[in-house]
């Protein structure tokens, strides 16, 4: 049903909210495990940190950051709509506004995370 119904802004906003929520939850599970390793197995913890710092790990961090940022911004959108029901008429505009903030905050954030990987390629240093 979900894939058969032609989604508009409201349904897409909700679907991305769910997907990003599940992604964040999965990271929290991984994070609980890696933090446990600090005391349980420091060598394994260092290995995990190396994975996080690798190019693939950094791309994953960018995706995690994107999920967190979208979830937070759309969460604010839902909060505004919930607290002021008159704002329901602007729900699409609020969603587009959240994407503008997403891009403005997300691109510099992604650049900072990826700089050690892409910096040398772009000739601007890590």
């Amino acid at each position: 049903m979900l894939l058969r119904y032609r989604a508009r802004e409201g349904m897409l906003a909700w679907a991305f909210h769910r997907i990003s929520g599940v992604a964040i939850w999965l990271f929290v599970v991984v994070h609980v495990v890696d933090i446990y390793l600090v005391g349980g197995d420091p060598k394994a913890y260092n290995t995990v940190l190396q994975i996080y710092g690798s190019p693939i790990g950094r791309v994953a961090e960018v995706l995690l950051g994107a999920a967190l940022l979208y979830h937070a911004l759309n969460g604010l959108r839902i909060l505004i709509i919930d607290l002021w029901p008159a704002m329901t008429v602007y729900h699409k505009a609020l969603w587009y506004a959240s994407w503008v903030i997403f891009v403005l905050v997300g691109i510099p954030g992604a650049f900072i995370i990826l700089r050690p990987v892409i910096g040398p390629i772009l000739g601007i240093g890590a």
Partner: protein
Amino acid sequence: MHVSLRIQRFDPDRDTASHWVEYGLDVDPMARVLDLLHQVKWEQDSSLAFRRSCGHGICGSDAMMINGRNRLACKIRVDQLGRKISVAPLPGLPVVKDLVVDMDGFFAKYRSVHPFLVNDDPPPAQERRQSQAQRAVFDDTTKCILCGACTSSCPSFWARPGYVGPAAIVNAHRFIFDSRDQGGEERLQILADRDGVWRCRTIFNCVDACPRGINITRAILEVSAAIVEKSA
């Protein structure tokens, strides 16, 4: 204008599952999907089953999923849809035959919110008067025609068929905020249930689907706020 009309068909006497059947039609761009369905039924296949009554967007009989979104077949025109048109029964409701769905559960939920004026005071000599401002509070929700397009477009309803659904909440809203009504507390109690207003995820499919342009999500949120205020 030639259009390809795909209809999701299901005959409980013959079929084990629904299937798509395509019909080629020469139609006026200003024709409505209901006109196309009539054309198929009258000229190509009389076994096609669908509901319709007034044919003018008032009775709410011919809500169906048209090109992936819930619409009234008598309101949406070919020029709004293009040359490829698909028509399926309302999603999330049991199919009786072809485009006819079982609305019993939908109306049971509607009745569950007491969609009628509750006032035990003796009737006044004249009408129960109401100011324009008092009326404006619930004016939007008086427009519901109970077509079911909103409830059957709601992913929360698809996931949990027990959810009372947008249509029932809209009709509860219509009386909860009516200054002449005295049954608001009871309705708020009914809608504070786990299958009540809290199932709304502000997805707005209902608002998009409503052929009367009712701001359904706003109505749901106003009922939610009334429940919170009542319990505070």
